């Protein structure tokens, strides 16, 4: 569905690359996460994949279109949701969607239906200048669904949203993916990536450091530990036990059989911990030199 080979991009048209030798493939129906801190090259890569930035070096193929010569028709097959909401403030929510609907050559979804799933149907005829940031973001998000895209590019789809709305957005993404939509998700939010993505790529300083599924990464980089809080007499004890070490396993077994366990959880690594381990940097790191 999406193929990227040896992609380079420099805003200054010299060897200061914002994206360096990026290569990956996304299969049809996959949710692919592009995980990295701000300035890592996520938006640059997405910009090239969606035709917003000119392809300088490398090979990029999106839904069957070579991005060296992007075709207008390609945009009938893809949807792009931006990190910053971008809607016409003097038009109502419905007018915004109706305007974009008329630009497509393919069957589109009913704007009122989209407003409903975004929870904006009650303000369909209200000018978007009166909308909150979250409402505008949801409108931008559902606008990218208008043409029922085969490939859906989402840039930080839940950033800045309250948890309830973010949860709704994630549900919509899951639902669309189950219906066959391929999703390219750029985010620095590890929880979103962990929850939604079949595979993730860690990108930093314009280079992909690793591509794998969150499960494989956790298995590979996580420690097989179980944390237990239990009462021994009046004392509350907190210990971690290795699932590999025989002694620890026996001790854990003994606590399970005889102890008064209050809390117990596996201590698998989070994507953020793995990211730090692999790249040496945190996901909130802000790169300003690019």
């Amino acid at each position, binding site marked *: 569905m999406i193929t990227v080979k040896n992609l380079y991009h420099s805003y200054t048209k010299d060897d200061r690359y914002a994206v360096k030798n990026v290569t990956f493939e996304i299969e049809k129906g996959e949710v692919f996460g592009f995980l990295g801190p701000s300035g890592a090259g996520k938006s640059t890569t997405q910009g090239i994949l969606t035709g*917003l930035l000119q392809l300088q070096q490398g090979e990029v193929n999106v839904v069957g279109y070579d991005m060296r010569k992007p075709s207008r028709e390609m945009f009938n097959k893809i949807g*792009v949701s*931006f990190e910053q909401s971008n809607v*016409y403030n003097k038009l109502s929510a419905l007018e915004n969607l109706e305007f974009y609907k*008329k630009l497509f050559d393919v069957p589109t979804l009913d704007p009122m239906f989209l407003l409903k799933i975004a929870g904006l149907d009650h303000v369909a005829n209200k000018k978007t200048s009166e909308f909150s940031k979250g409402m505008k973001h949801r409108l931008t998000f559902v606008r990218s669904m208008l043409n029922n895209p085969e490939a859906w590019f989402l840039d930080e789809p839940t950033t800045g949203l309250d948890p309830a709305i973010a949860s709704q957005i994630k549900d919509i993404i899951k639902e669309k993916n189950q219906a066959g939509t391929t999703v390219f998700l750029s985010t620095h939010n590890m929880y979103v990536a962990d929850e939604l993505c079949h595979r993730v790529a860690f990108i930093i300083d314009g280079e992909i450091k690793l591509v794998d599924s969150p499960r494989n990464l956790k298995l590979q980089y996580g420690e097989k530990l179980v944390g237990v809080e239990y009462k021994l007499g009046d004392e509350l004890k907190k210990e971690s036990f290795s699932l590999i070490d025989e002694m620890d396993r026996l001790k854990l077994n003994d606590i399970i059989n005889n102890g008064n366990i209050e809390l117990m959880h596996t201590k698998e690594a989070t994507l953020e911990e793995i990211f730090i381990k692999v790249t040496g940097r945190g996901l909130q790191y802000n790169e300003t030199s690019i």
Partner: protein
Amino acid sequence: MLRRILSVMSRDFKSGIRDFMVVYILIAPFLLAFILRALIPSVSSTTINIAVLETMDQDMISYLESYSYVETFSNRDQIIDRIGKTDDIYGLIRTDTGYEVINQGNEAGEGIELIKYIVNARGNETTQLPVIVKVSDIGWQLSPLKQYGANFLIVFGSVFGSMIILLSIVEEKMSNTLSAINVAPIAKFEFVIGKGLLGFIIPVIGTIGTLIILGFTQINFGMTILTVLCISLISVVIGFSIGVVSTEPIGAIAGMKMIFLPIMASVFGGIFLADKWQFLLYWSPFYWAFRSIDSIILQTANWNGILLNSFFIIILTSFVFFLLKNRIKHGLN
């Protein structure tokens, strides 16, 4: 393709009419035309009206009618009643010793003196003058204020459409909607045509309205529309080029004001410069538009002349467009 072009145009129009500044731009040509019409001397204020008795010598009435509008009444009281009405009309009654001029006292101008000249001139028709007076026509067919005022309004009005383009591009930039357009299946040229259409339609409507308000109903509207479409082209190009680099509307309009200078120079240069210096204005497309509109208003235009002037406008506009093309293209990305 047409659907997308019209969608962009109707969106811009819809968005525009929700903005006070754009509504003002839309009605400005009509307002200015009404103001100009109020300033142009009206027919009644340039024609003298005289009330006379039916018994006045018919030759004298015919003589007066060659200089004025004459109304006849059966008696003096009726004449006085007529003079008492709101408009300006003078009474002229034959007396034993000559003529009596009756006025209300609040008439504008030097009406009484004019009537005295007219009456005396008839008495002196046979007098041999000590000088030879030759009257010649220098070619004024209209009030200069009306002729050039209408011309200026039309050429100046060509900018109004491009101001709407300018504001809509600034709106797109401010709300970052250009990015969303760039990932929609609309070709760049469709977007540009859709945005640019209002830059042609609004000046054409404004021009027709201006001409009708000013009473130019007998002119060739085909030639007028062609000229307005041509001159709107340069305004549209400049509107785009300023819009794509502006980040807020007031700054954009301030930038657009730079186009006023060549318009003023072209119109006033065209009026006041001697023929031998007119070539100094040949660089300006607005000058060629001014010349076309002038001949159209005076009803001396022919298609060859209009097409030639339009050709010059398009050539000069093309030159400006090629200079600004990359800036516009880059700004719309």
